[in-house]
């Protein structure tokens, strides 16, 4: 007999399984992958009682239609503004809910965000690959056979039925605002002072050329002062590389591990999910910080992540 599973009735085109990403394989050319917005992943997981970096379904722009082949399953959706219903009944934002066999879960579009997460209590019974369940579609590694989730796909679940704990909810977490913080380098010396100042004092627009590999930014072109070919070296998600055209490209979670264009600066980890969530047409401004400042920001960010786990509590009984 078939075990419990989440069934994709009408998934949107870019649904993949993602967790906290993989570590230790970059030296062999394998990207870390993992959720584009780690904070939203942690939110969805906390609401269903999972650990923060458990694998969940990540979708872009909207989530589509889902059903469960099990008695019941506790689910939660995170990513602001993704309108969620079960058999037409709205699930309040940042609240867990029970999806029963035969019911339909629909996750609509969000006017505010790009990436949303659907977490299931207990997680998916899908074996990790290279230490992670994150899907890297380009190399067909991880997730459900290394691919995006197609209509009809069956995702095995760990739990047969939802436990009878009360639903969980949390208040909207405090959202960081303001400019996106970057650390200059590692190849800022390939650019003149005028280009650095342009990067820091201009508005760059997020374009439709955004995916899990990279975001192309639209704004003043940056000029190299020493050519634009470097000997390829290691890159990280967050690196802003500038090819010959002068158009900055922000590398994301699925980007390759080595690259041959100068990297003028790198977006700090705590701000990368925030930029990843910016929809085409949004404007991003960059602010340079020192590594020490970046680490202080990181500590506050990790404390906020911890707070998500601590503050997710049972729904007040008046609401249930």
């Amino acid at each position: 007999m078939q075990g419990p599973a989440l069934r994709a009735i009408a998934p949107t085109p870019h649904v993949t399984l993602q967790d906290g990403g993989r570590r230790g394989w970059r030296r062999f050319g394998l990207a870390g992958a993992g959720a584009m917005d780690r904070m939203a992943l942690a939110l969805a997981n906390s609401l269903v009682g999972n650990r923060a970096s458990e694998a969940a379904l990540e979708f872009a722009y909207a989530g589509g239609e889902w059903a469960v082949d099990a008695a019941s399953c506790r689910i939660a959706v995170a990513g602001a503004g993704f309108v969620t219903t079960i058999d037409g009944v709205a699930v309040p934002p940042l609240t867990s809910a029970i999806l029963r066999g035969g019911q339909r879960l629909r996750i609509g579009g969000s006017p505010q965000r790009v990436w949303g997460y659907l977490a299931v209590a207990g997680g998916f019974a899908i074996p990790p690959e290279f230490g992670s369940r994150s899907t890297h579609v380009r190399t067909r590694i991880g997730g459900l056979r290394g691919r995006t989730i197609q209509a009809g796909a069956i995702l095995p679940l760990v739990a047969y039925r939802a436990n009878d704990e009360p639903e969980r909810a949390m208040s909207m977490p405090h959202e960081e605002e303001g400019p996106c913080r970057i650390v200059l380098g590692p190849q800022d010396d390939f650019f003149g002072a005028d280009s650095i100042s342009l990067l820091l004092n201009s508005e760059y627009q997020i374009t439709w050329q955004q995916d899990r590999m990279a975001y192309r930014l639209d704004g003043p072109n940056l000029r190299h002062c020493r050519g634009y070919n470097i000997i390829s070296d290691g890159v990280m998600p967050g690196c802003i590389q500038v090819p010959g055209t002068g158009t900055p490209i922000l590398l994301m979670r699925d980007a390759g591990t080595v690259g041959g264009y100068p990297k003028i600066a790198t977006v700090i980890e705590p701000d990368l999910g925030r930029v990843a969530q910016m929809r085409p047409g949004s404007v991003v401004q960059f602010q340079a910080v020192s590594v020490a400042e970046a680490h202080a920001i990181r500590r506050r960010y990790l404390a906020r992540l911890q707070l998500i786990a601590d503050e997710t509590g049972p729904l007040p009984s008046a609401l249930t």
Partner: protein
Amino acid sequence: MPVGDCALSVEFDNVIDRQVSALVRALDLAIAASDIPGIVETVPSFRALLIVYEPEDIGFDSLIEQLLRLISLGLNTRVSSGRSWIVPVAYGFPDEEDFREIAAVTKLTTDEIVAIHSSAVFQVYVVGFVPGLPVLGGLPDALHLSRRPAPRPDLPAGRVMIGGMQGIIVPMPMPSGYYSVGQTPLRPYQRGAANPFLFRPGDRIRFQPILPAELDVLAGTSSDRFLTTGDE
């Protein structure tokens, strides 16, 4: 140089050569053997070592200080020379056309191409671009040729290729602007294996001509048989 808040890059001379590559690898090994806390992973490339760290476990200044101490102790490039492989290649198979194109550009006969390519000692400078792909330095000058203006789609695993001043062995289906010199039964990426990636930065590779008929015979052979020295 910092690479954001979780990584830094140690850059050596701005050239691609064996000596610089050996320094990168020597530092990589020295870090692995050291007790520096907070190192998550490292990524050696031609002339730089990317070091990913956990800022909760080690500060930037402290990490730099400890790296400088390691470097000041002297990097031993002798112990960092890696493993040696003999990689069989069915030259000119199955892309005969590529072979003729290389011959036309380099003004060599196909026999000369095989002789030159199989007598060189290549070194793995980087593994990357796609998982498990070894980028090989040491391509003899006579075989240097520009890449194709447009890449060819979907080259299968095991293609041995040259382009620019480098060689590669295709680990999984991918597009490439390089020219194919032949096919090897070895697979740089073996999905599900205990050690899925065959080659590491620092490994040395010599190619040995085989007949196309031998590809199938050798396909099931343990990859250890193609190592000529032990594991470091």
